[in-house]
Structures are given as C-alpha cells and as structure tokens.
C-alpha cells in the first residue's frame, strides 16, 4: 500500500471540501477500496473517511418509507430495518461475513456498484431514492453500468430512501468462492405493481427484468413466470457460470423470491 493522507470529517460539508483535493477519494467501510489499495491497484493521495459523519448514519422510518444513512454498516441495517423492511434486512444480514457486515456500508456498496453486490438490487427493485449532498436520484437513473453510477466527482451519497413494498424477498445464489451473488434477485410488490431487480448476472450490472415485472404485476405467484423466456440482457460468463446458466438462474431465483415474498 502506498502512503496516503487520512482525514475524517464530521460533517458532509467538510467531507465535500476535503474531496476537492487532487487525488482525494471517499472512504466508507473500505471493503473494496482497502484491498484494492493493498494490491497497489489504487493509490489515492487523500482518503476522506465518511464514517465520522453522524448525519449519515442510522435507520429510521421517514416520509414515504425507510431512510438509511449512507454510512450505516450492513450489520446495523440487518438489525434495525428488520421491523420495517424484512427483505432488506435479510439482504443486509447475508452480505459477506460478520467482519464485512460490521465495516461495509450501504452507501459504499452503492457508490462502488459492483455488478455482483447485493444492495443495488434492493435499491432498484424498491424504486428507492439515492440522496446525495447535491440532489435526489431515482434508482432507475442511478445505476449506469459496471462500477458506474450517476454520481459526479466529489458527490457523496448521504442517505437512501426506500419505499416499503407490500411483499418482498431477496434470493441470492452464491458464487462458490467469493459468495458474492452469482445471481441475486430482489422482488418487491407494491400496490402499483411489481419490480424485479437482478444483480450478479448482467454484463452491465444490476438490471430490471421487465417481462417478469409485467407478468408478476398481473398475478403475483411463482407460476406467473414459468413460461417466460429468461431475460434478454447480456449475461456474465466466467469460471463460475456461463451466460446461459446465469440467465436460467435469474428465472429460478425470481421464482424462488416470489415464493419467499
């Protein structure tokens, strides 16, 4: 690891100011960034820790749903969201291992937008709003492909606002080595319709399976998608599964998520 400066502001404004330095990089739980730095694949000059900002932490019921501070660790979400949004709490409680869940944060996961991460599927399926220091971004606008988001340079996610569905479930099929999602499907049924978001599988990262949404909006039961062809998105092919396999698993996991919701 190369040497770097470390700052830990206590307000969003101070964090934004610190990020204006050349070579500055926001650090949340560090579950991706720190290993990357140890491998010398990243060498930021200044790390701006976001975990000292109290305003960015916590889970509370707010207007139109559940508000989660971006610097809230997965373990806290797993514990504190359980009463309001069990499917989301379940997802958070099954990310990585206890050490990862104690350090890693929801905002960090969303800013990184790893194509195999769990949280993006919850945000997209819930039609959540990503709140930053500058604006509010709808989930459908936020995710823009592999490790790519609508965030601008120096923009910090401060909060995520989740509408709470009537029924929901997240089913993750583990990649055997990393136990990231080989395929993860989040199904959320709202009064106005069903949203289905898929992580782990798509070459462009998390995506909505709209054919399944339409079928499930017409009838929310496992049989509703039995006859659907797997999604047409381009799927990841790697050591752990071919594109064809992933596509088929999207269907299987969607069915199981509907069953579990």
């Amino acid at each position, binding site marked *: 690891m190369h040497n770097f400066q470390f700052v830990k502001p206590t307000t969003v404004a101070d964090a934004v100011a610190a990020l204006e330095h050349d070579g500055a990089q926001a650090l949340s739980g560090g579950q991706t960034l720190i290993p990357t730095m140890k491998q010398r694949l990243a060498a930021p000059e200044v790390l701006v820790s976001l975990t000292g900002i109290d305003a960015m932490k916590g889970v509370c019921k707010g207007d139109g749903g559940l508000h989660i501070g971006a610097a809230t660790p997965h373990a806290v979400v797993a514990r504190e969201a359980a009463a309001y949004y069990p499917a989301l709490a379940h997802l958070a409680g099954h990310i990585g291992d206890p050490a990862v869940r104690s350090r890693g944060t929801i905002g960090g996961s969303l800013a990184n937008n790893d194509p195999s991460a769990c949280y993006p599927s919850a945000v997209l399926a819930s039609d959540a709003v990503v709140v930053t220091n500058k604006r509010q971004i709808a989930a459908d606008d936020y995710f823009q492909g592999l490790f790519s988001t609508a965030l601008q340079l120096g923009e910090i996610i401060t909060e995520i606002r989740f509408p709470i569905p009537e029924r929901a479930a997240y089913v993750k099929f583990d990649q055997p080595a990393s136990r990231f999602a080989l395929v993860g499907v989040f199904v959320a049924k709202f009064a106005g319709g069903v949203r289905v978001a898929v992580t782990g599988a798509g070459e462009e990262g998390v995506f909505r399976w709209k054919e399944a949404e339409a079928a499930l909006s017409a009838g929310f039961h496992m049989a509703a998608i039995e006859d659907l062809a797997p999604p047409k998105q381009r799927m990841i092919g790697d050591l752990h599964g*071919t594109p064809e*396999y992933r596509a088929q698993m999207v269907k299987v996991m969607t069915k199981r998520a509907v069953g579990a919701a």
Partner: protein
Amino acid sequence: MPKDGGIGASTKRREDVRFLTGKGRYTDDINIRGQAYAHFVRSDMAHGILNSIDTAAAEAMPGVIKVFTAADLAGVGGIPTGWQVTDRHGKPMQEPKHPVLAEGKVRHVGDPIAVVVAETLDQARDAAEMLDIDITELPAVVDMRAALAEGAPKVHDDLTSNLCYDWGFVEENKAAVDAAFASAAHVVSLDLVNNRLVANPMEPRVAVGDFEDHSGNSTLYTTSQNPHVIRLLMGAFVLGIPESKLRVVAPDVGGGFGSKIYHYAEEAFVTFAAKQLKRPVKWTSTRSEAFMSDAHGRDHVTKIELALDADHNFTALRTDTYANMGAYLSTFAPCIPTWLHGTLMAGNYKTPLIYVNVKAVFTNTVPVDAYRGAGRPEATFQLERLVDKAARQLGVSPVELRRKNFIKPDQFPYQTPVAVVYDTGNYDATMDKLLELSDHAGFAARRAESAARGKWRGFGVASYIEACGIAPSNLVGQLGARAGLYESATVRVNATGSITIFTGSHSHGQGHETTFAQVVSEMIGIDAGQVEIVHGDTSNTPMGMGTYGSRSLAVGGSAMVKALNKVINKAKKIAGHLLEASDEDIVLKDGKFTVAGTDKSVDWSGVTLAAYVPHNYPLDSLEPGLEETAFYDPSNFTYPAGAYGCEVEVDPETGKVTVLAFTAADDFGNVVNPMIVEGQVHGGLAQGIGQALLENCAYDAEGQLLSASFMDYAMPRADDLPMFKVDHSCVTPCTHNPLGVKGCGEAGAIGSPPALVNAVIDAIHGAGRTDVTHINMPLTPARVWSALN
C-alpha cells in the same frame, strides 16, 4: 480402551496451548536485528523472452540495498529434482534447468524475474515498480495434449519437446493387458479430469536467511515439512554450502499439505543474499504470490478402461494419463504420477493385469507436485469412478461389484500386478462398517423424502487403499529416488529421568509433540509430561527426511521406538548392576525396573541418575550416559485402506449439490491418539470434498491464472460440509513396523472425491437421468446444471 496417557488415549494436543493462545512461533515471527526485506518481481506473462532488465531506477529508490537478477547469481545452481523417472523406452526423463531467477525466458505467471532487497518491504515494493523489464511475449502452452502436438511452442528450448517422459507400467504386461481387453465379456471406459488444486495452507511460505560473518555459517529459517531435505538440496546443489556450515530451521509450520516439502527458489535466494549482503534477508509470501508460486497439485487427464469377464470379475485395467508438470520439475514432481500413482492402480481389487501409461508434460503453468495424497488420490479417483460406472453399466450394485473383486483377508500378503505387496487388510470389514454407520438400509426412505421436496438424493461409496510409510530406501532407489526415505530419532534420557526426543519427522499440524510423547510414555511407563519432542532444526536433530506421505508415525515413530529399545536395553543393564541381578532378568513396567519374580526394584529415575552420576556403575563394561540414536528404514510401505460413503442432495433447478452426510470407515492399523486421527480424517475429508465440489485452479488459454485469489478459488468452508461420521475400529495392524501403524494423514483426501462424485451420479440416475455418466470435478452448480441441460 481409552486411557489417560500412552497409546490409545485421546490426549489433548499439548501444542494447541501455544497455537490457540497466539504463542506459536512461526517463521514470520522470526525477525533478526538488521534484517532487510526481499520482494520478488514475478512474471505476469505465461511465456516470453526476457530481453533485458534495467535496474538503475529501482536501485536509486530510497532504502534499496540491491536489486538482484539472474546475472547476480553467478555460481548459484538450479533448483534440483529429487527423483528421476525412466521412460518406457529406457530413457531418462527430460530434466530442464530450474533457475532461481529467470534466465532468458519466463515460463509461467509467477516465475520470479528479479528481487528487490530494501530496508523495508514497502520500499522494496515501491522500487519494484521502477524496474524496466523488457519481455517479448511468446505463445503459451496450457493444455497438455496441445503441448504435445507437433510444432507446439516449447516451454524449454533446449529440450526435444514438452514431453518430460512417457512412462509405461508394467511395460512387460502391456500385451497381456491388451489381449485381456480383446477377449473381455464387458469393457467399461471413462474419460476424466483430476482438477488442479492449490494447497493454500493457512500459513503462507516464509524464508529468512541469516549469515554469520565471523564463522561463515549460514542459517535459513523456512516454512518446511523437511528441513534436512532443504539443507541437503540447497546446500549441495544450489549454493554449494557444506552441511556443517548450513543450518536449516523450520519452526512451527502452519499447514503444508505437501506444498512445503519442496525446495523453493525463495529459500535459496534469501540464504544467498544474506551472505552477499552480510545482512539477514526476509521474504514473506503474500496470498497472491502463494497462488502463483507454491507448487500446485493433481492436474491429470485420464482415459481408464476396465475389462470384466461374464461373471463380473475384473480381468484387466489400463489407463492413459497426461500429468501436468508445469513449467519446471518441482522436487518430487516426476514421482507423483508414476510411482505414487501407478503402483496404486490395483486399488482394493484382485485385478490380475494392469497397464498404466503416463505422459508427463511441461506447460506454461506453475509447477505441480505432491498435494495431500499425491498420486494416490488420482489413482483412487479414476478407479473408483470406473468401478462405479461399471456397476451402473452392468446393472449391479456398486457395493456388491466391489465386494466380488476385493482382495480377501486370507489372501494377504498380496502381490499386486503393479509391483507392491499389500501386507494386510480387510476391505469387506470396512465396507460393512460403512454401510452400518451410514444407515445404508434407510437410504430409500431418505431419497423419497428428498424427492417430495423436488430434490434428488444420492448415495455413493468408494473404497481406497494408499501406500504410506514412505518408503523402503532400496526400493525407491531402484525406482529413481535420489534420496533415502528412512527416518531418524535420538532419545536423550536426562539425569533425573525426563526424556527429550529429537526426531527427523516434522510436524506442520499433525500433533507429533503429543503422539510421540504418548508412545514414549507407554514404553517407559513415565508420564507423557516428562517427555519433550524436539524437531525442525538441523542443528540439533539427526538427519531425517521429514513429514509427508503419512509417514511420521510409521517411519519416524518406528525410528523412535528403535532408539527407545536401545535405551531400555542399556537401562536394564544399569538396573541389573544396581539390583545385583542379570540384565536378562530385569523387567521394565510402569516406570520401574524389577528383578523378575522378586520385589527388588529400582525406579526409572534411579537408573537414569546412575547413568549420569556413575558412582555405582559398571564402568568397565558400560559407558555412562543414556542417549541413543536410531535410523529406521521400512521394509515395505504401509497400506491404510477403507470405505467411504457420501450422501448428497442435488437441486435439479440450479445444479447445486449439498453434502448431507459423509461416513468414513478406515483401517489405519493401530491408533495412538484417536482424537488426533479423527481430526486428520476430518481435515482430509474437507480437502477431498473441496476438490470434488469447489476447488479449481484454472488457467485461460494464454496461461493467465484465472483463480488467483480466494475470490475465484473456492476453499471449502464449514457450512459446505456435513458433520462427519468417522470410524477406525476395523484394525489390521501393519505387519512390519513395531507399532503396527499405517498412517492417517492423507486418507480423507484420497477416498472422498470419488465417493462424492459417485453420490451425485447416483442422485442423477435415481431421477432417471442415466444418460449422465460422469461430471468432471469440481461439481459446481453450473457444471452439474450443464450436464443436466
């Protein structure tokens, strides 16, 4: 019967106190004042011409002491190979030079090119980024058959091809085997892959070199399973340092599984550099480096065929295997697919005719060598998958087909057609025990219960036999070994009666400090707490060959018993003198010497004190002191054997295999510490199930290592495994070593992969999909699903 100490007691491991409280002393815990740090710069290409290395910018970086390339290693020899295989035509294998640092070419991802030695590790790594290395990339050979094709790129330009050897065993049997196939009532064949694995011990490799200027003595601290072997190979062949000037210390070692047997370039480098720089030099492998520099395991591609007569007796077996050597020959690499593999192809069966062909191939991949089981898992996997396939093809029970062809208890000693003589065994007994413990009778009901949930349940068995207690030196010498494979022990009895054992065996997790002390306690009748086991330092232990091949107790323990018997004989003479009786009348029991038939006695400590304070002592006929050394060379291998059963559930929608139960019925001969034996089996099963279900070291066609971290290389975790049922109550003691022991370290990893794959095939056939006859390991969900769709 379980007892408090001595042989047969599940004594808690004394070494665990320090391991579990963070007090273990591993190589990385050794830091010598003034030490510098070595960082190896490794090839990120699989194959290329090394045109030039410009070190100037790197050497100008802060803290850099020196940058080494091959040009700086004048006088340093190549890393030697400890075994020479002679091929089918009587020719010695092709044996390329394995330089410490790449000379002219890089031959695999991870091949070391240069080393930066600096005041700190960070400085060394910073400087490494300033090296200007010019490599012209060449096409790589990864697939073994492609490597042997006409015109394939050559890994070593000075060899005639990428073929290391073409080995036939037993060559004289080939015609008879082919004739038996021609007249067989049934022939069953199977093509399979034994997947390449990375050992991944918890402790990565570490080497610290030290040099004492005034004496000219070198010391290497290293993560080794056999420090004397490293001293011999490195001292004699690489660095030219006599044994008297070279000390090798392997302190606590955190797992090896074979990967820490070999002599590695990094060990030679730090020893060399310490002398050059007159400073201690330390290297600690990162996990990423381990993936591309520790010797890998397995990697065979095989076609195997079985001939049977009309009554389903096995009449002949033949195999055609391609074995990957990687880019260079690691220390024992040539021996693994040949003598540790071909000699086990008879398995537990009385197949009269066997022919094994193995083509060892150089490729642009990390060298491959022994990994837990080493050749024997490859043999067992082929054979036990094939026998299972035969049973399914013939419509008979896999258990009954095995039983029909088992060597029976009254047939021992049994000469197999592949050179070895099994001393003893009872394969039906372990099969009976397995079926009982795994509740085989209740399987149909369990399968129906799974089916009701939409899951396919399967039960698979595998028999195994292995050759352990490696090895009779005169035999392995004839087979090409360049070293003896005896073991040594010194028993030093101290004046007040405590005992220090210096053993050439070396624990890297096996618990020798506990079990060896139990044996001493049993033989002398003193508390095990009075016995100290010393190992791992060439400066104080007699020259020994170390720990691998499940040999420690069978060979090292036997050496210790032999030395103890010398001690006891001498002690009886002293006791006879003290008790004024003939030493032939002296009996040692429970730590007391008694004149037989009398109540005259003297305690163990009374005799030991007399040996060192010889005031009343037969000085005219006996030397003072009580210390003996013995070397034990086994007359045969030992042959642990057993039957394993695996019960799985397959999710047909996803292809995911869940291991529901695993039962192991082993015959290890006599057992010194049942708890430790069970732990060894548990670990072996975890690794075998890991191979069958999860682990896969994969390269792409360009020779890039795809599974280069735990993100892609799936290690087994606790929740991948069921609770194990293990049993070692079927005992046929080894007939030729004094403890009657056979060895238990590798069995679990040998017997479990075929049992698991057989169970998955059983599940799939049970659901009516008899078209699926084999799936290559690891049986990941994607592979199983692909086989079904």
